[in-house]
């Protein structure tokens, strides 16, 4: 209970910090006036059109990537698996790159890239599933290996596209791949939030199955779990979470790997606790990282993936080292 409260406070703190901090500082009183609709100045535009969409997208994507990591790590019984291991992000990056190269960005300017990214993600998920399903059984080792291979192929193809693209196209692709929460299209933000919360709810129904999965597939079956059905549903949920997140925000690394680890170190391996705590912690972590990315060398904005990688890595090594020392 203390941990839930602590993580919730952490999320609340990240919300407030992200609202007040930036190239233009906005006081707490002004924020309240803007939210009440009493103030319509420059700060109002900054808050309503820039910061709040970023916070909500950070909540949706940070939460989604974290629970996708929890799901995949329990399914594969491998703590090194993360949402990007299966090549879904590679597919999305390839889709977005093709969208730039084929000049399809202008078709529907605001949503072309996310749609292309999502199509790219789906075009990896479907063959990945079909290749590894044999007489109704989803082969986990095959899924992991094929995913890693697809990831390599997609990265190579993206590099090929980068090599043959012109300077302005190159910038568009690189900027998208590095990941960002800069999205102003409310319809996309709403979809991302809806998908991540729905998938959190659905995956929570399988929290006990994930607890059993950690013991191995046979042991889970001995505990009455319909292993094959559960694996397929969990794979689908993790794929949708990853695909949607990458489509809307590009590739933001490390969240899906470091947050589940961190939460596991703090709480143990019960997925009934882990899923919710990972969602909240992941959201807070991404919102804080984005705030840092916006402000650390303001007005230049750093790619948020750089911050999640550096900060996440340091926090993780510190927490892991501390835990090991305590254990000794």
């Amino acid at each position, binding site marked *: 209970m203390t941990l839930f409260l602590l993580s919730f406070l952490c999320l609340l703190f990240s919300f407030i910090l992200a609202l007040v901090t930036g190239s233009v500082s906005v006081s707490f009183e002004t924020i309240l006036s803007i939210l009440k609709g009493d103030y319509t100045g420059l700060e109002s535009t900054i808050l309503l059109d820039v910061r709040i969409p970023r916070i909500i997208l950070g909540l949706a994507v940070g939460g989604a990537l974290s629970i996708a990591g929890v799901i995949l790590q329990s399914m594969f019984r491998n703590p090194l698996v993360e949402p990007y291991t299966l090549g879904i992000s590679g597919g999305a990056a390839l889709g977005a790159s093709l969208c730039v190269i084929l000049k399809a960005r202008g078709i529907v300017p605001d949503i072309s890239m996310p749609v292309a990214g999502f199509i790219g993600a789906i075009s990896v998920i479907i063959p990945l599933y079909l290749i590894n399903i044999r007489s109704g059984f989803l082969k986990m080792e095959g899924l992991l290996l094929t995913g890693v291979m697809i990831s390599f192929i997609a990265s190579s193809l993206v590099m090929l596209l980068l090599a043959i693209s012109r300077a302005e196209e190159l910038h568009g692709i690189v900027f998208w791949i590095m990941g960002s929460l800069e999205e102003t299209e409310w319809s996309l933000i709403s979809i991302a939030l809806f998908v991540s919360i729905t998938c959190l709810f659905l995956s*929570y*129904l399988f*929290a*006990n199955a994930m*607890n*059993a999965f*950690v*013991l*191995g597939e*046979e*042991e889970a*079956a*001995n*505990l*009455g*779990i*319909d292993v094959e059905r559960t694996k397929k549903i969990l794979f689908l949920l993790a794929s949708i979470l990853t695909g949607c997140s990458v489509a809307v925000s590009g590739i933001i690394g490390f969240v899906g790997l470091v947050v589940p680890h961190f939460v*596991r170190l703090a709480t*143990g*391996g*019960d997925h*009934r606790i882990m899923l919710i705590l990972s969602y909240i912690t992941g959201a807070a972590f991404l919102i804080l990282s984005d705030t840092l990315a916006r402000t650390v060398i303001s007005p230049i904005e750093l790619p948020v993936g750089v911050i999640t990688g550096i900060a996440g890595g340091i926090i993780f090594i510190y927490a892991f080292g501390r835990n090991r020392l305590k254990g000794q």
Partner: protein
Amino acid sequence: MLRIRGLTCGYRDKRVLQDIDLEVCKGESFGIIGPNGSGKTTLLKSITGMTRIFSGEISFQDRNIRLMDRKELARHISMVAQMTPSVDMTVEEFILLGRLPHRKGFKLFESKEDILRAERSMELTGTEGLKERYISEISGGELQLVLIAKALTQTKDLLLLDEPTAHLDISHQVGILDLLTRLKRDEGLTIMIVIHDLNLASEYCDRLLLLDRGRIRRLGPPQEVINYRDIEDTYRTTVVVDKNPLSNKPFVLVVSEEVKKRWKG
């Protein structure tokens, strides 16, 4: 309680067990012995529905297990497999996993009954003192007790145990088998146990099944199954079989190649 008729089963296209016929009665401790690769573990797995059945039928309480759904089967049959779980769970959390088959629908949290059952299992196996400790922190002997406690929390009908005494010293081996005997006597548990140690099998099991290359070599009380001819033929090694003066059960002594040469000489 459990009836197996004309069972041929295995994995993918490989038939591991052939023409198995046997019955296990309620409250019985039924030992499965045989050399490595003879199909002992496969027999247990076939009862939990984890193998491919080519022909024959397995019925539990007069119901074909193929027609029972996985949760229902798990409410009656639990398996203590050979495993060292690497999980970040306390002993109590781990034992409570045994109640998963009893949760209806998507019920996520333990009921009072679940907790009472887990506490009773810990009491029966003497693991109450370990409940706050992490699985990774306990010894091999304690782990076996915890695995049995989890299985007991799951069901008190039929327990399948795959070499529960492997890698344990004799004191822990006897401790585990004495515990199973008490559970059988006091709780009415039926036990099917795969065991490599022929002497422990002879001492603790009511009946034994000797498997040889996937087929039944002999089935009956230890006095019938443990005889030098069957043991030597099945294990392809020389043994001496004698009788334990206290329990009157047969025991097996191995004969090394050097001793054999000396005797022949």
